[in-house]
């Protein structure tokens, strides 16, 4: 099945799937790879790894970029051998017109998919696909409490920030090795960016509107203006899970999360560690910071 690669959580997988394509949310390879984007000063390493990984997919029908960050928005300018779609995801959200723009962009994405060979889904097909994904997210959420036996010498941590590439996923093991336990994954690739459960009645009345509401209407993120909902979400989740420390993860040159570091630190009642990743260097260089942070928390 032809694949559509994307990275942003604001791209609804079920919208792509309902068109008959395989949505593949790339998070970057486990090891750095060369591709259309070279390494240079000022270039987001996550964006680079995303595009270079997409370039390796042999069944790729297109890449969906979003405007949620400057570098991803501009990345579409420099990818010239692959079909690309740039989806406008408004930064503002307090007006109905922002959501209307998001819905218009979903429809435009649909046209792009059709141009790439997809067929437009019927409303029944869309609803069926949405329900399937909703169930999968429900399962994911339920799995959150499976391993609930926190030993008393484990420190309860929250991750907050941008995405974690495959290469940097070793961070989880590093944290565990030094006595930490991730109780809340608020990274871009974690539970923070799961779309909200669908309202079944609204889903049947107007599936596209419900899809927009579950994604655009609920996912809190640093890029949104204002981004007060991110802090509201963090306050709720950190409070409910008795978090003892927060690790902010951000990629080199990511202004959006970098700028939040100072504010989150001031706002939190618990200590915070600011970790800058670059998707290429070994995470081992960050081990000392993680170790020291966890020792200080005990």
């Amino acid at each position, binding site marked *: 099945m032809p694949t559509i690669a994307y990275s942003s959580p604001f791209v609804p997988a079920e919208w792509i799937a309902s068109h008959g394509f395989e949505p593949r949310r790339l998070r970057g390879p486990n090891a750095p790879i060369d591709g259309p984007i070279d390494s240079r000063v000022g*270039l987001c390493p996550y964006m680079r790894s995303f595009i270079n990984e997409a370039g390796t997919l042999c069944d790729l029908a297109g890449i969906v970029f979003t405007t949620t960050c*400057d570098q991803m928005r501009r990345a579409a300018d420099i990818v010239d051998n692959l079909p690309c779609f740039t989806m*406008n995801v408004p*930064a*503002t959200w307090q007006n109905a017109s922002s959501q209307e723009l998001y819905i*218009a962009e979903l429809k435009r994405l649909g046209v792009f998919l059709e141009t790439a060979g997809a067929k437009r889904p019927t409303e029944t097909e869309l609803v069926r696909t949405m329900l399937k994904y909703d169930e999968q997210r429900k399962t994911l959420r339920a799995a959150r409490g499976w391993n609930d036996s926190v030993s008393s010498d484990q420190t309860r941590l929250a991750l907050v920030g941008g995405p974690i590439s495959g290469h940097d996923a070793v961070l989880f093991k590093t944290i565990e090795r030094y006595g930490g336990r991730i109780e809340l994954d608020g990274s871009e690739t974690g539970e923070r960016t799961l779309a909200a459960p669908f309202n079944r009645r609204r889903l049947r009345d107007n599936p596209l509107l419900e899809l927009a509401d579950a994604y655009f209407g609920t996912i809190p993120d640093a890029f949104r203006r*204002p981004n007060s909902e991110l802090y509201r979400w963090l306050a709720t989740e950190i409070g409910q899970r008795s978090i003892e420390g927060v690790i902010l993860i951000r990629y080199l040159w990511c*202004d959006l999360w970098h*700028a*939040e570091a100072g504010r989150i630190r001031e706002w939190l009642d618990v200590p915070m560690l600011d970790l800058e990743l670059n998707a290429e260097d070994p995470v081992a260089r960050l081990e000392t910071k993680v170790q020291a942070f966890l020792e200080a928390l005990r």
Partner: protein
Amino acid sequence: MPPKQIALEEWDRLYDQLKATGLSEPSYGGKISRHLTDGDLRLTKLRFDNSIAALNLWNFLLTEEERLANARAEGKKLVGTMKDLGTVPVLAYSLPDLVAFYPDGAWWIPCVMELSAGLLGIADSLGIDESFCPVRAMLGAFVTEAHFPLPDLLTCSVGATCDDFSAIAQRLNGLGNPILWWEIPHRRKPAENERAVVLPGGMTAPGIQVDFVESELERIKKALESLAGQPLSDDMLRDGIARANAIRQRLSELRSLVFKAPVCPLPALELLIAEMLALHYCSDRDASLQVISDLLIETRARVDQGEGFLDAEAARIFWVNPVADLRVMNLVEDCGARICGTEHLFTHALDEIPTDVPPMRALAQMALADPMVGTAADRADRICSDITEFGAEALVLSRIPGASHCALEGGAIADIVAARLDLPVIEIEVAPLNDAYWPSLGTGLRALVETIRQRRGK
């Protein structure tokens, strides 16, 4: 008086001579050197045009803080308009008793005050370090309240803007400054079956995007009306657009004269300052028009008399992006080059606002013509077109340190321009103060000038 670039102390002597012969000055007049007492230390390292028109230009620029304070004292309301570079001020100045300014302008304070104001240190302390664009100085300016009065209303355009600015503005918001956010979507080309709208500057956008921006500007308009305590009618806005266009027309003529004249009639530094006046009129629309008109008269006279700077052999350079260090504009001329075309990220503030559509629609079209909200290819198209019109022989892409858009955009623009026009292109980075990098910056520019001269011989 033959055109000449002179140092600050020479201007003082010239000023005394002019005063002795009955120089008539506007209310903001005086010696440029008096601004040293405000801490504007960079002035001692700049070379200035020796015309009275340039004297007024500098004094007008350097007295904005006083104008804002006076406006507040007179009971006028201040609107801090962030990021959109030229759109919201047209709305604000269409209402009586509103004065709009760009807090973004603080990005020049570290240069002008040679880091003595400590604004970057304050930004550092708030977690906004040197990995961000120098516009982070704005945060320090808000904290110290020493460089402009805190505005009564603060707006900020977001969406397809640079992450640096959006992130810094959000930090400002998090410090307790309310911001009215409005959205400018990423401009795209209309699809085949979509309604297309031609924007100022010649680009096109889908009608749906123009509709959206118009609705966003309606929100801004309502907020401004509420602040002003009166509605903004279409006639008032048409008048505001006409006045904005009057400034833009004169600037357009000035730019054309400067870029096309056989001998450069106005230094790059003064032209850069003049172009900046289009954004928010330096907080006085009528005075701004007068300053630009005087500069135009002076420049026209020089062109008519064949007077100017350098000579007709000077290398003709097109400059992309504003410089955080004003002194670099002097360096261009030191290296034997003149500026023949600029794209400082605000061509939409220089192109005339349409007058054949309803005024709010016209402003929406203008906002969407912002070079920052489109693709690098769009920017490159405009740059290529202007290079051809102004006869530039090379392109300088001046990177803004830390700016999220520069890393990708610069290379993309360079590739397109070099391929399409077969011109030499260089990229340089200009920090707020470059004294330590002066030799390397100069070497790069001199090498470009050499290249241009060699190409002429072939």
